[in-house]
């Protein structure tokens, strides 16, 4: 059987003092839909080890990251190979009205880090990414360049970008092109 292929398999990572860009492939990703006030929501939180964050535009971290993506929707990011997670969540809230969908290959993750990361993203993201406004623990679904993305602020200058797989090649090329001037330093 041939190797698995990630959407940015051909992407040459950027590794400079000022800026790092690399794909984090094959994360386990689940889309979770549930009424946040329901018992099922609490049970899912227990099963994840991370309560579902209810403040819009934030994420919670534990063994996995749980990103708020809507008032009854979350995106769970777990390490590659967490195949059993979907089943465990279904079991935890058996019989309740929930939507749990494996979307692992729907998007891929790109990590952007380094002192110029905000300058890089500012070329194509209309959100205010100043640390006063969009610090660690914040996430947003928005548009970067011409692609819809989920953006999460990590510690320091790091950002995680989740982009639809079909757009990943475009966004990778766009990031590389935009990065050129930020590598000069």
């Amino acid at each position, binding site marked *: 059987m041939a190797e698995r*292929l990630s959407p940015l398999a051909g992407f040459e990572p950027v590794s400079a003092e000022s800026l790092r860009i690399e794909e984090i492939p094959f994360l386990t990703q689940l889309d979770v839909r549930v009424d946040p006030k329901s018992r099922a929501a609490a049970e899912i939180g227990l099963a994840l080890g991370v309560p579902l964050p209810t403040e819009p535009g934030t994420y919670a971290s534990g063994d996995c990251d749980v990103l708020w993506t809507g008032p009854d929707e979350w995106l769970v990011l777990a390490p590659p190979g967490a195949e059993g997670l979907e089943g465990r969540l279904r079991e935890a809230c058996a019989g309740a009205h929930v939507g749990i969908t494996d979307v692992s290959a729907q998007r891929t993750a790109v990590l952007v880090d380094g002192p110029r990361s905000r300058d890089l993203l500012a070329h194509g993201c209309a959100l205010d990414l100043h640390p006063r406004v969009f610090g660690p623990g914040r996430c947003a679904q928005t548009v970067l360049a011409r692609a819809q993305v989920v953006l999460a602020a990590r510690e320091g200058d790091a950002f995680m970008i989740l982009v639809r797989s079909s757009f990943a090649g*475009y966004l990778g090329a766009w990031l590389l092109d935009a990065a050129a001037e930020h590598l000069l330093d």
Partner: protein
Amino acid sequence: MTSRRREGVAGETLRFRYDGRDYEGLRGDTLAAALLANGVRAVVRSGGLGRPRGIYASWTEEPNALVQIEEPFPEPMLQATTVELYDGLVATGLGGRGRLADRPDPARYDAVHAHCDVLVVGAGPAGLAAATAAAASGARVILADDRPAAGGCLPDTGETVDGVSGTTWAAGMLAELAGRPEARVLPRTTVFGYYDDNYLVAVERREEGAASRERIWRIRARRVVLATGAHERPIAFAGNDRPGVMLAGAARAYANRYGVLAGRRAVVFTTGDGAYDAARDLAAAGVEIAAVADVRRDAHALDEALAVAGPLAGTEVLTGHVVTGVGSAPDGSVASVTVSGPSGEREIEADLLLVSGGWNPVVHLFSQSGGALRFDEELHAFVPGEAAQAVEVAGAARGVYTLAGCLEDGVATGTRAAEAAGFRVPPHPVPAAERVTALPSGRLWLVPADDYETHFVDLQREVTVADVMRATGAGLRSVEHVKRYTTAGTAHDQGKLFGVLTSAVVAHATGVEIGDLGTTTFRAPYAPVSFAALAGRDRGMLHDPVRVTSLHGWHAAHGALFENVGQWKRPWYYPRPGEDMETAVLRECRAVREGAGAMDASTLGKIDVQGPDAAEFLDRLYTNMMSTLKVGAIRYGVMCRADGMVFDDGTVMRLAEDRFLATTTTGNAAAVLDWMEEWLQTEWPSLRVYCTSVTEHWATVALAGPRSREVLAGLAPGLAVDAASFPFMTWRDAEVAGIPARVCRISFSGELAYEINVNAWDGLALWEAVVGTGVVTPYGTETMHVLRAEKGYPIIGQDTDGTVTPADLGMDWVVSKKKADFVGKRSHARADTSRPDRKHLVGLLPEDPGLLLPEGAHLVATSRLPEPPVRALGHVTSSYRSAALGRTFALALVSGGRERIGERLYVPLGGDPVPVTVTHHVLYDPEGARRDG
């Protein structure tokens, strides 16, 4: 030509070429300054009348001196007054139109988003004071200024602040801002648009060596301070377009900022005190001031003061006088000035006529922001009135014309803005400047005359007072109408200098007050912006996202040509060496009809629909019944909009009692999900259903053809593939090529066929395994289209256009008669949807079996085209060559088409209309005998 440079001015010499002649200038010059320094007065000829024109202003308000840069890269329509001189510059003067480059621009242009608490536009005295005050609070401040160096008018006037030269003071302010981590200074940056919710757009002309040549800034500001200054106003008089007629402040700027004298002997024509400052500086620099014509009869106080001391001592001041004529030298430039007044009429020899009709605050951005303007009767100018957004105006931009006043106003405004944004500004000293008192200005727009044919109100568009009066004589009253009738104010400068004057002339001619008449609308951009800058990096591969599937690399490596489907690249066909499209597609079609083919179907939209009410939900959205579908089964479905027209189609598989997977057309994936969410959220919130897009989670390989079963059997030994165990329109989970897969037995070609879905990461492995069997031919979208068309399957969006019902497509069978309602049902009972002459989907067979009809071609009833209007009966929606039929065929939407089957219709293709026969839309295997293999 002798140098007009002031004595003692030195610097790095730069060589340049203008209109074919070589000149030298100094670093720091604009092209206009360098031309004046070389004594070049008539820099262009006007486009229509061919009149010689000179430099009128000193910055972006220049109406005349448009140039085309020839080297290093051709750029049309730049203002000589804003082009920074560089060594080797080659330019020509433009009378009107420029020329676009005949080659791609190699420079890079880009864009950034920025956010701030306070945006200050303009780094003159008021703007610098505002920005430093606001930044002292810790607020995020952006200071944008369109000049290369900060200071605004200070280098032009030579005034001092805090006891040092204005330039030194400005440099100090910039240094202070540089020390504020949250402040950013953008020189050479023109804020050209002020849009909703304090969204402002600017263009930065970056320094040589920067990563991009120009950069667009998209700035969202909590508060805005506009410190955009004022433009000196011209006056309409006979011959006011002659080279040598110049704004007084511009001549002062050339003398003080660039050390360039615009003439040797000058007459000053003014309505106020400002021109005396200009005249004084010019006299000190060596220009002889022949006389001052001051329109004010009560300017005697000045007259007396001038007589005493200073460079203007003894200068004749002609109070109550106006300029009534300009005499010209052989090159058309000013040789003498005629003045008239209480002392009579006199002709004075001069090569320079300095004009000052007062000042217009630069209210463009304020007006763009939605703010109201009001006419100030003391300043004789339109000033900012009530604001519509979080914006304040400081300094000359609101009519504060003294340096001390601007500094004070700047500190106050910057402080207010930062505090309104929630910051505390520590006590901030007001920089000190000399306080002066001025006499009230006079008001004069237009020097009365018998003939207004050379009283210009737009130098670039060559509009005169006579033209304006013809417009008002024709009955036009609104300045907007006069603008469009005369074109005054429509050139590159958008009437920056002359717009208010034009309004005044209209007011004069129609007997109304200018304050009641108002101005024309100020619109973005404030100054011309190149399309290259606006396009930025959205060029070439980055122009629009290219979406690809997980198999794209394989397709490209195997010579596929690609078809654009929305943003997707889909393999169109895979030509072998020596094959053209027709041959390749016929080969691929034959392979599927006779053996087995594989296509990348990953782009189809896929929506996971879960919840106890999922079946009920789908019953309401699809025309057919989905709730009766058994787990493990698949049904084709059609969705209509509420108007009953087909919106999308696809298959629905039932994964579990409460879970379905719906597929959509490639182009409608997002629209269908939005459609589902809209109904769920806004009409049926009580339905317990969640919808999730999984389009890109899955890679889908379509395996089609009579040999597809044996191929699948070989790849999936654990799967019972016989027709009884795995019937048509069912799905099975299985390992295919060792990969967990969901296999659907569905067909879009009429052949025995499967669609194999795997996690997109495994898509390439699956594809390689399928193609690696050696019996499977890869095929592209063109073959898919031919095969489906032979079967009469419509493509939504190609064979339909939003005006087609399921019945029009001959698909009554897909519309449930049992359901009480579904979206679109009521519309199917409207009188219009049951008209017998509705367009039906039918097949067409050209009588010439080799003739391929163009898609979009129209159908008519007769072999000869009647006189127009010609009634078209419909049009060709799809047209192909069929390997299976051995001929060409087409699908068409034809009025009353099903009743015309067997009829002959005609298709006009330029010559005589060609005959075609109308047929049923299913042309291949109408019995459906082939789908089980």
